[in-house]
């Protein structure tokens, strides 16, 4: 039977389709202002279209992410940490600590063999999240996906101290006015971001390997800054953005196997 995992985030909605342990298709859609359920429905249609599965009607759907309770066509919902632990076990089995950095939350999960043993979530504040970098991108007028690469060319160490994303905006503007180089400012921004994530990792206790997942995992600037801070390499997978949705699909599969 077809199983569907939906990860409804504040900025992106992710869908993964699976059948008998195999990933059939994936879809990622920007969460618009139309409501979580509508976006998830659109993303599911895209994923179904990819796999030419639109005719198949019998499926089990599990939702996760901050909008999980709003997906009204889902059969059930599953906690983010459980989904992450399951998916990481499938994709990156050597990993024991997962840091999930999305647009609007950061979640650190400690896991062993697909089971989440502890988790620390932060979704009250934009500091440390993708929303922070989105602000930085709009102030500097640099596309979001270029920020990380530019930061790596930095030669001078600058501190960006503001914890709050809103205050960082003014701090960055005054750094630009004082003729600091963009790459140095960006490096400072990433170093600051890594520092905000550090307490969360310490709280759950670091155990190797450490993986970075979520929408922000692709950002080379952030990854480098975290690696520098921790002093060792971080594991990551190219499709880290859909990892939560994959976990939800695995949950769905487990339910189907257990006869729901």
């Amino acid at each position, binding site marked *: 039977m077809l199983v569907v995992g939906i990860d409804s985030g*504040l900025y992106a909605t992710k869908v993964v389709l699976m059948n008998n342990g195999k990933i059939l298709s994936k879809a990622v859609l920007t969460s618009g*202002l*139309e409501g979580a359920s509508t976006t998830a429905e659109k993303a599911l249609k895209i994923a179904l279209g990819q796999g030419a599965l639109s005719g198949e009607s019998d499926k089990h759907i599990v939702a996760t992410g901050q909008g999980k309770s709003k997906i009204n066509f889902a059969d059930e919902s599953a906690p983010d940490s459980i989904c992450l632990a399951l998916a990481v076990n499938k994709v990156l089995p050597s990993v024991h600590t997962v840091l999930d950095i999305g647009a*609007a939350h950061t979640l650190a999960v400690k896991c062993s063999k697909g089971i989440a043993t502890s988790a620390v979530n932060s979704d*009250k*504040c*934009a500091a440390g999240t993708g*929303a*922070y970098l989105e*602000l930085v991108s709009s102030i500097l007028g640099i596309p979001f996906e270029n920020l990380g690469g530019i930061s790596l060319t930095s030669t001078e160490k600058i501190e960006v101290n503001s*914890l*709050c*994303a*809103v*205050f960082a905006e*003014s701090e960055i*503007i*005054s750094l630009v*006015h004082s003729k600091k180089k963009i790459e140095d400012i960006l490096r400072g921004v990433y170093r600051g971001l890594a520092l905000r994530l550090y307490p969360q990792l310490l709280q759950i206790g670091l155990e190797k390997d450490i993986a970075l997942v979520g929408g922000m995992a692709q950002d080379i600037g952030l990854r480098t800054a975290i690696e520098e801070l921790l002093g060792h390499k971080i594991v990551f997978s190219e499709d880290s953005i859909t990892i939560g949705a994959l976990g939800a699909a695995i949950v769905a599969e487990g339910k189907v196997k257990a006869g729901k």
Partner: protein
Amino acid sequence: MMTAGIDIGSLSANVVVLRDDKIAVSHTILTGPDTCETSWQVMKEALVMMDRNFSVNNIDYIVATGYGRIVVPFSNKTVTEISCHAKGIHFFFPKVRTILDMGGQDCKAISCDEKSKVTNFIMNDKCAAGTGRYLERAASTLGISLADLGPLSLQVVKGPADISHYCAVFAQRDILLLRREGAHLNDILAGVCEGIVKRIFPLLQQLGIRADFAISGGVAKNIGIVSRLEKKLGIKAYIAFDSQIVGALGAALFARDFLLSGDQYF
């Protein structure tokens, strides 16, 4: 005797000039990117308003305050904005013992004694939630002016909208979603104001309120927040006639005191 206070805040720069014990002039401009230049501009403009031949040399003593106080090139001394606010408020309302200073970038709750000496304070300057910046973002997201925000927020239609996010960045998205769902502008604004009050209240609670109570800083001009806070605290708030100049006034009063006590640099 002429003394002056200059308050370089994150959003506005203010000057108050005292001739003996009376306010001779007060002036406010927006803080530009170059804080040092801003300090010259606001001071020169204020002096020209008094007499077009005046320069900083005509002032006997200048005290700078606010977060940009260290870059003011012509000040004789700097004093923290907390002490200046207590002193400035005391000038208008001598009985005030608790002050809430809500600025563009931070929020402070201050206790002071009968001589306007600060006895305790609690501040939030780490997070934009509960500051003027939060209001600015909300107003610009909804395309209205800051001046209209307060009065409109009091004309609630269905009830205050629920802005569930604490963070100013995420609240902006809440506001957009509410707008999309068809919530009335006034109800969203009421939600914004209630959110701010909810964030400020713990600061005051922690400090402990003693009457009289006064609100200063730019946000004190917002009737939507002031009236909700008064209701929640069950106490009337005094507002200085131009709450943005309170810090600069306090600085000018300190300048007068320093001059009279012979505390001079030159």
